[in-house]
């Protein structure tokens, strides 16, 4: 394998890894803070994708504006859903919560299918052309995706690990009751975590629409991989999710090239299985003490 090809595959892996990263970041945030497995995450990706599609085709705007639009829309909808639906079942048994997010997913899927039909939607507007760096070619669209993911990933990490509100989130992740007794506003923190996670998912959707196509089920594929990333990175570990996402991006890129697409999937799931056996708490996750 030539050095150029190596860097080309590396660059390709970065783009997929970046997108997976912000999807998984949202899942990890929700799971870490609220212990909720959000089955509806895929629908929030789809939401961002359709919002961007409408923005481009109805208003003639650049799809780049779809990214802040999706962030804002996702944040607002995430806030409302957390307040109106999720918060009401937080104290209930885990299965109730699972069924609630599953129901949200089904409702979302139905709404998108009813509103947009089953056919895929796409647009050709937006950045075009590619950047050629000594033979390594990366399209401007892909580069936009990668850079946006890096910025959003870094911002989320800073929020969680450096900001004051992040302290509350981390405290909640460690022990909900203890955090509450220390004066942390549990309700506001949970709402913030959910809202930020949905905003990330919707922004990921805006980016997916930029490099791919949009259907009512576009989010599902990403969210399945997102769960794998979260498991690999350590349940609820935000930094671990990012590391695992890029790892999977590289495996996907190199294994698809050297073997084929099916083998890439097999290897990813074998890695997941091995990780569960060897490091059940994930790459960067902490072992929980009873």
């Amino acid at each position, binding site marked *: 394998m030539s050095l150029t*090809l190596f860097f080309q*595959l590396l660059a390709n892996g970065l783009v997929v890894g970046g997108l997976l990263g912000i999807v998984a970041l949202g899942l990890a945030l929700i799971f870490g803070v609220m212990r909720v497995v959000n089955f509806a995450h895929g629908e929030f990706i789809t939401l961002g994708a359709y919002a961007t599609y409408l923005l481009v085709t109805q208003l003639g705007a650049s799809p780049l504006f779809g990214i802040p639009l999706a962030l804002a829309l996702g944040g607002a909808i995430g806030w409302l859903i957390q307040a109106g639906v999720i918060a009401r079942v937080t104290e209930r048994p885990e299965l109730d919560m699972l069924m609630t997010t599953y129901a949200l997913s089904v409702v979302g899927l139905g709404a998108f299918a009813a509103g947009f*039909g089953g056919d895929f939607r*796409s647009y*050709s507007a937006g950045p075009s052309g*590619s950047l050629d760096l000594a033979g390594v*070619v990366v399209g401007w669209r892909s580069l936009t995706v990668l850079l946006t993911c890096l910025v959003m990933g870094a911002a989320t990490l800073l929020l969680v690990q450096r900001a004051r509100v992040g302290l509350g989130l981390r405290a909640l992740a460690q022990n909900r009751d203890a955090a509450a007794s220390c004066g942390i506003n549990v309700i506001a923190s949970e709402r913030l975590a959910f809202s930020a996670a949905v905003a990330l998912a919707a922004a990921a959707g805006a980016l997916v629409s930029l490099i791919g196509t949009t259907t009512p089920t576009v989010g599902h594929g990403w969210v399945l991989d997102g769960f794998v990333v979260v498991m690999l990175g350590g349940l609820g570990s935000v930094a671990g999710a990012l590391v695992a996402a890029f790892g999977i991006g590289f495996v996907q890129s190199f294994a*698809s090239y050297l073997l084929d697409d099916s083998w890439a999937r097999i290897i990813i799931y074998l890695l997941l299985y091995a990780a569960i056996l060897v490091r059940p708490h994930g790459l960067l996750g902490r072992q929980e003490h009873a």
Partner: protein
Amino acid sequence: MTDPARRTLLLGVAAVAVLAATGVPAGAADPIRLGASLSVTGRFSDAAKYLQEGYQLWADEVNQRGGIGGQPVQVITYDDESKPDSGRILAERLIDRDGVTVLLGPYSSPITDAIATAAERAQVPVIGTIASDSSIWERRKLRWTFQAFPTSDYDHEGFLRLLGEKGKAIKKVAIVYEEAPFSIRAKDWALAKAKEMGLTVEAYGYNPGAQDFRSIVERIVAFGAEAVAMGGYYQPSVALTRQMIERGYNPQAYFFIQAADGVTREALGQQTEGILGRSAWEPTLETPAARAFADAYRAKFGRLPSYHSATAYAAGQVAEAAMKAKGTDRAAIRDYIATTAIPTVMGTFKVNAKGQQEGYHYIATQWQGDTARIVGEGSANAVIWPKPAWK
């Protein structure tokens, strides 16, 4: 009442609203009934309307000519909501309650597959209007169900023929396929054909639902393919195309399976120029049958027909030929359809021993300016060759 029975009843009640019986003059002889389950609502609803118009035009024309053996024809249609299960239940209703002589096909391979179950059991002939997936006939032993749509096995045929005519300099061809029965069968056919033509060919499979084709593009680049044929679904095809464009990889010829023109244009903009596709039928076909049908359709509906309407009309023609020859005896109609070459607006209908369509194949198309035009065999349009570089 059992659940399935209740479901059938509910479906029946709902279906009354969309029951569309073509005009049978009062006092005429009892009509010969044909039936179709159509996706009036749901994800296939756009296409089903055109299918219904094709059936309607055919029935109206037959009745204007005095019917078949003095009996008018009537096409009864119900809405299957684009769901295979509903299609099967409605087929049972058409057979048991409405007593149809022949079932005309629904939209899509999965619904045809479901309807075949009911039809085979009741021994009623089905003319599978829009079912391109020939693996249905490979997988199941279907005696009463016939494929009336060009089979997906020959998806790459037009592309390879053009390659033979125009691409003498091309030595290496890449075929991308989805790990799904129809795509694998088309790939197998194309691999054998390409080798027979003396080409070096490599095939690359991807998982259903894939959106990331970057590694496949790298493999194609490393292989040095000068022509690429993508035989998967429409949506991954657009993703692959975009990633080839981003990579700056310019094959001299590029083919993928497209459906609606508008969607391809919306997704790829100006980059469509020179891209090859395939079509079951086009209103610009220069055959007398196609021209007569297109004129009649335009006179009735005020616009040019799509391939959906043409295949529906052709299915009617097949039923008509069989009933003219054999009356309303279902078994005799079945034998006639299974063994006879029947001229239709699509070309000559002829099925093989399994019931798969062998008579007519796809025609090659190419994006030229704002539309996809017929190119190659029997067309006056010049092929743009090689494909212009991505813009």
